[in-house]
């Protein structure tokens, strides 16, 4: 890449050609106040006018997020003209904004609040009418409050870029413009996956998960026996809630925090991930042997299940009938665990800590219960757990490293840990499939063919004389061509892993926000690297684990021996399997 000479505030610099002023300035050590977090075209339309600067050769002030640097350009960020213009832009945005910042759940992560401070926006400069407000609190997953929306369009771009579903769009015109699902419907009344990717990118509190923190207080007051479980991806992100570097694994501190929050048992959903592998691998082998419906597709990701039901309802027979791991864990806690401990399942309250907003919806599905007991009672996102810990006055960084409770359903293998990253379920399944079909463990343990962040990954294996061709997709845009092939009857695959969010659960809609302008200690290219950093946290825990194949989980073996019989037994089906909707209505 050719280098060019520019000056910022009179100081000479060499930067790569083709960068925007904003990017170039950041590399030279200047953070121009901006609402756009350099997020690869998701928002960089230059329309908010927050990042205005003076640049030689340009007529008037320029939006630094879209204006490219060129040879000899002199950029001034601090001139009174630029300072006043940026402040003016922010004051205009604030004039149509709900200013209940204290109570807003985005407090602490709000980019609008940050630029208001940076630009010195004054109170009450523009007063007058405000755009009529819609607050959608109907879905169990996401709240949309248009009074906080600044019409930046990041959510619109993310939904379309990640999934091709384009649930969100701009509606109406001029002052009446809002962002929402078609017809200003609720997310519940649209074919929305509830994945929360829109929440991940919203700069304000206009899109937020629906908090369930108070349910825990209620359960405590009611004297419930509260069991908490954590998804693998949570440990790769939770530290970020407390200012730690992205990718810091915090498994030990998380366990310690959960114990101090008063949960009666602290378990890892990874136990159920191992259980999922036992059920799913055996389901696959049964389908292969009996000429059942193939390819079989994983069913761990509730956003993906929503996508399949809404857009490929005619193909739901390809989905594994396995419930997602946390639902399995809940069902086992309220049956096996309850029996062993002599606790009435009606008195057990299961809390799942998930990187996901769609899990909040999933737990509400009518089929997710056994004998009238809901599998899972409450789902908190990684961010909500961060809030809960802060609310309780726990100094997270100073906590000792502790372990999950080890009784009955406490152990887990490295195969379960990697469920949280794209390709992880496939790799875990392959480790066990190899053992079942070859009669021995796979020597190198790891299947690197299925790792990485390519949108669609493929690999072929011959295991015990059985040819297996697999594919992995993440982001529904990548699942679409695979599903179109299946519908056309020309899919070459045996087994497919699909995860809704790009990168898998480590980048789930419930994970900590990655906002470069709010993360001064991260590298400038953090948006390119954070997924890998979080994935590394999981792969390293897998490496450290002495047990690395799901079938070697001694407590899973015990569970089958004492309670379930064998994988896919009648009892296992009753507790661990589910069914899907063929004709889910897209627009209600």
């Amino acid at each position, binding site marked *: 890449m050719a280098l060019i000479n520019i000056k910022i505030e009179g100081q000479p610099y060499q930067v790569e050609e083709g960068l925007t002023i904003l990017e170039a300035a950041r590399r030279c050590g200047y953070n121009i106040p901006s609402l756009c977090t350099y997020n690869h075209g998701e928002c960089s339309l230059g329309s908010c006018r927050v990042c205005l600067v003076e640049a030689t050769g340009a007529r008037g002030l320029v939006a630094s997020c879209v204006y490219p640097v060129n040879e000899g350009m002199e950029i001034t960020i601090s001139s009174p003209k630029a300072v006043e213009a940026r402040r003016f832009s922010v004051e205009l945005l604030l004039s149509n904004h709900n200013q209940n910042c204290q109570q807003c759940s985005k407090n602490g992560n709000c980019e609008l609040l940050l630029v208001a401070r940076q630009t010195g926006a004054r109170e009450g400069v523009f007063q007058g009418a405000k755009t009529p407000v819609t607050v959608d609190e109907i879905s169990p997953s996401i709240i949309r409050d248009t009074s906080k929306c600044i019409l930046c369009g990041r959510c*619109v771009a993310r939904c379309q870029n990640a999934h*091709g579903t384009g649930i969100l*769009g*701009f*509606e109406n015109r001029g002052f009446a413009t809002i962002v929402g699902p*078609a017809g200003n419907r609720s997310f519940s009344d649209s074919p929305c996956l509830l994945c929360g990717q829109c929440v991940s990118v919203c700069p304000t509190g206009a899109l937020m998960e629906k908090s369930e923190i108070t349910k825990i207080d209620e359960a405590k007051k009611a004297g419930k026996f509260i069991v908490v479980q954590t998804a693998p991806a949570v440990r790769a992100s939770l530290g970020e809630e407390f200012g730690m570097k992205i990718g810091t694994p915090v498994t030990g501190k998380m366990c310690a925090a959960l114990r101090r929050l008063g949960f009666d048992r602290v378990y890892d959903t990874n136990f159920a991930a191992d259980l999922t592998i036992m059920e799913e691998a055996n389901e696959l082998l049964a389908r292969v042997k009996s000429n059942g419906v193939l390819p079989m597709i994983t069913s761990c990701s509730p956003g993906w299940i929503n996508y399949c039901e809404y857009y490929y309802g005619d193909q739901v027979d390809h989905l594994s009938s396995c419930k997602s791991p946390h639902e399995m864990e809940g069902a086992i806690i309220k049956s096996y665990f309850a029996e062993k401990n002599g606790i009435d399942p009606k008195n057990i309250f299961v809390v799942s800590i998930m990187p996901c907003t769609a899990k909040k919806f999933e737990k509400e599905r009518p089929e997710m219960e056994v004998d009238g007991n809901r599998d899972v009672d409450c789902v908190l996102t990684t961010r909500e757990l961060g809030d809960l810990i802060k609310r309780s006055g726990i100094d997270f960084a100073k906590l000792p490293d502790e372990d999950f409770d080890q009784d009955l359903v406490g152990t887990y293998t490295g195969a379960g840990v990697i469920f949280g990253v794209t390709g992880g379920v496939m790799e875990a399944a392959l480790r066990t499939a190899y053992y079942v079909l070859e009669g021995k463990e796979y020597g190198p343990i790891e299947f690197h063919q299925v790792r990485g962040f390519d949108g669609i990954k493929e690999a072929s294996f011959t295991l015990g004389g059985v040819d297996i061709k697999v594919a992995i997709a993440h982001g529904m845009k990548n699942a679409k061509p695979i599903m179109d092939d299946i519908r056309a009857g020309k899919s070459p695959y045996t087994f497919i892993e699909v995860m809704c969010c790009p990168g898998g659960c480590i980048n789930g809609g419930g994970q900590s926000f990655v906002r470069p302008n709010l993360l001064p200690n991260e590298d400038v290219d953090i948006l390119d690297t954070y997924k890998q950093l979080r994935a590394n946290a999981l792969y390293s825990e897998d490496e450290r684990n002495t047990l690395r194949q799901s079938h070697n989980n001694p407590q899973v073996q015990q569970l089958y021996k004492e309670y379930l019989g064998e994988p896919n037994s009648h009892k296992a089906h009753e507790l661990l399997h589910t069914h899907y909707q063929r004709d889910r209505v897209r*627009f209600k």
Partner: protein
Amino acid sequence: MAKLNEAAVKQINAIVDRHINDKTPLMMILSDIQKEYGYIPLEVQEIVSERTGLPVAEIYGVVTFYSFFSLKPKGKYIIGCCLGTACYVKGAQQIIDKFSELLAIKPGETTEDGLFTIDALRCIGACGIAPAVTINGTVYPKMSVDQVSKVIDSYRAKEA
């Protein structure tokens, strides 16, 4: 949500067929649907979405951006009141208000009997005869508030 009948689905698909190979077919498709089907409800937008691959939300955004497009059926007679600068200074606001008062609907709405819709138009290029009103293509030049009830009555008489 209401389901479209088979004939309507066929009609919409035929309109889409006309333009589907254009580089950017959406505006032409919506324009023809508005003219021929009369309005563009969400069920119709879903078909357009399936065919063009554009998200429903984006199509909905276009339909609600342009005042020419309508989400609801329009009346048999569409009263277009120009509110462009010239018409406005010549009292067009009072004229559209009078239509609203007599028909008991707001601009953009349709009377319950399905007979009249009031559309607020921006400049229609007839500034020389301001304030101008058009009803299904017929131009009423230099309208006055007093004429409004007579004009409405003339259309009601046609229906009687």
